[in-house]
């Protein structure tokens, strides 16, 4: 058994490409998803056309620019310039203050701000508007209340205090709406699926392809030992990978682990075992590495990415796909990880999802043992 493991590790360590996939990919993926493929708005270039240039517009401008979301590219002077900046793509948003802004705001209570965005990127445009709007609203609230206080003070109770309705949003668990927090659980799920299921199925299929499987079967080794020997190294490697991902997300992206690390790791091991049993199952139905790779890729990886709620929210899918997503193990695993990492819940909140994964694991193990036996018959 020990010899088997040593051999298996040799296979892995001698295959440069495999090593690259095993250890390079997790790091690259986390960094990619974390930095590049992000839904967050950060430092969006904007231009401002200030037609009144008074103290209020200055205040609003300062407030907008003091947030991390926007960066001032250009102060415009005429309407004509707007089109040019949008066309060459140097700004994503233009904010236009109407004439006599302060006066209108205080006296007529009817000041004008126009926001124009580049909707060739619809998501970004929408987000920019929401962000800008909330900043301006916030400003408006404060301005109103402070001016009312002054009024109240001056006219000493003559005026009734008007009720100001403040709608306050509070984003729970991910207050900054960082998309990294969305991606990390998804990446963990995908990588485990990929490494465990794809790599094990491929390495078992490779033995079949080379004919060494026959020799192993003819040897006194029991099938269970053969499979355990093939699978154990990947358990270890996947575990190292999870820890790498968690460390990167913790130190680079400041993603917290609110719940128990122990629970998180145990759930991960459960999911690893699930993926491995899936991998073994795949290997029983495929005789070549290529088949194994195709089945894992099309049958596992794509659905994992598309249906697990990692990229597209499940709630927005057509009903059929919503049902279909229930058979994706990764969907449940992502729910579990998110709950533990972001909400910090214990096992009592996620026992149902855990049970589902345990059930799936058992299902695949039974299925592959059956298949394995049939093959030997």
């Amino acid at each position, binding site marked *: 058994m*020990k*010899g*088997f493991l*040593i*051999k298996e590790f*040799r*296979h892995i360590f*001698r*295959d440069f490409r495999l090593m690259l996939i095993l250890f390079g990919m997790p790091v690259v993926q986390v960094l990619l998803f974390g930095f590049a493929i992000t839904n967050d708005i950060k430092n969006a270039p904007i231009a401002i056309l200030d037609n009144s240039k008074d103290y209020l517009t200055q205040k609003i401008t300062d407030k907008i620019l003091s947030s991390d979301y926007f960066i001032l590219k250009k102060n415009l002077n005429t309407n004509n310039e707007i089109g040019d900046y949008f066309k060459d793509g140097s700004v994503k948003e233009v904010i236009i203050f109407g004439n006599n802004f302060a006066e209108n705001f205080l006296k007529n209570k009817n000041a004008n701000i126009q926001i124009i965005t580049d909707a060739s990127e619809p998501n970004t445009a929408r987000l920019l508007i929401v962000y800008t709007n909330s900043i301006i609203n916030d400003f408006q609230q404060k301005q109103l209340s402070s001016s009312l206080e002054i009024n109240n003070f001056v006219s000493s109770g003559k005026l009734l205090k008007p009720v100001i309705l403040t709608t306050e949003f509070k984003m729970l668990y991910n207050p900054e709406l960082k998309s990294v927090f969305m991606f990390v659980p998804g990446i963990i799920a995908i990588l485990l699926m990929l490494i465990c299921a794809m790599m094990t199925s491929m390495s078992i299929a490779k033995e079949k392809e*080379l*004919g*060494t499987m*026959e*020799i*192993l*079967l*003819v*040897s*006194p*080794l029991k099938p269970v030992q053969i499979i355990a020997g093939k699978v154990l190294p990947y358990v270890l490697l996947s575990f190292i990978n999870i820890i790498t991902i968690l460390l990167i997300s913790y130190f680079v992206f400041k993603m917290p682990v609110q719940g128990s690390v122990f629970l998180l790791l145990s759930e991960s091991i459960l999911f690893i075992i699930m993926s491995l049993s899936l991998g073994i199952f795949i290997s029983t139905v495929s005789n070549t590495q290529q088949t194994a790779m195709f089945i894992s890729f099309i049958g596992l990886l794509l659905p994992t990415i598309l249906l697990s709620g990692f990229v597209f929210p499940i709630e927005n899918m057509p009903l059929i796909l919503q049902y279909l997503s229930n058979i994706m193990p990764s969907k449940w695993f992502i729910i579990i990880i998110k709950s533990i990492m972001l909400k910090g819940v214990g096992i009592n909140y996620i026992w149902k999802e855990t049970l589902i994964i345990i059930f799936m694991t058992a299902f695949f193990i039974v299925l592959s043992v059956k298949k394995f036996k049939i093959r*030997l*018959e």
Partner: protein
Amino acid sequence: MTRENILIKVNNLTKKFGRFTAVDNLSFEVEKGEIFGFLGANGAGKTTVIKILCGILSPSSGDVSVDGFDVYSQTEKIKKNIGYMSQNFSLYEDLSVYENFRFFGGIYGLPRKEIKKRTDYFLKTLGLQDKKDSVISSLPLGWKQKIAFSVAQIHNPKIIFLDEPTSGVDPVTRRQFWDMIYKTAHSGITVFVTTHYMDEAEYCDRISIMDAGKIKAIDTPENLKKLYKENSIEKIFIKLIR
């Protein structure tokens, strides 16, 4: 043939896959130390028989014993005493020669020292001592074949099964390989070999010709030639298979 000299004993062996009968009521015996040639067209059921004898396939009916152990209940013991080499010369391509020996020795439970000793012995016989640490994939096919044959003997088995061991190698290498087989048989190891090359059949002590799950003929090459009044095994083979 005395009783204790018989290593493989097959009696009325039948193997069915669903409704298809791959092996049909087969009976034969293989003696200790002989080279037994197992001939047959593709799909005649040769591989099925080998798999049953190796204990990885259980028969549908019939009695089969290998080295006195029953294939139904004592496959563990059978597996310890057999060596197997397939037509792919299956070795781990990304491991070195020595690592292959060590791995296969390891799965048969040989101690490290013993593996080392036997590896040195085999490499010396092959004249490949300086290749001990070369990776298998860097070696020519003929060498791989010889190494695979040695690896299959690392645990000193009583029988060694060779499934088309010479496919795809040149005539010179084939000749050398048969020298190795003779040496092995001389050392007391029984060799059970399947082949497509009829000239190789002539090297065997005894041969059986199989077709559609049945054995059509079984005897020494000389006796078969006399019996069918032909001057080569190839002619007999074609006569029987038609």
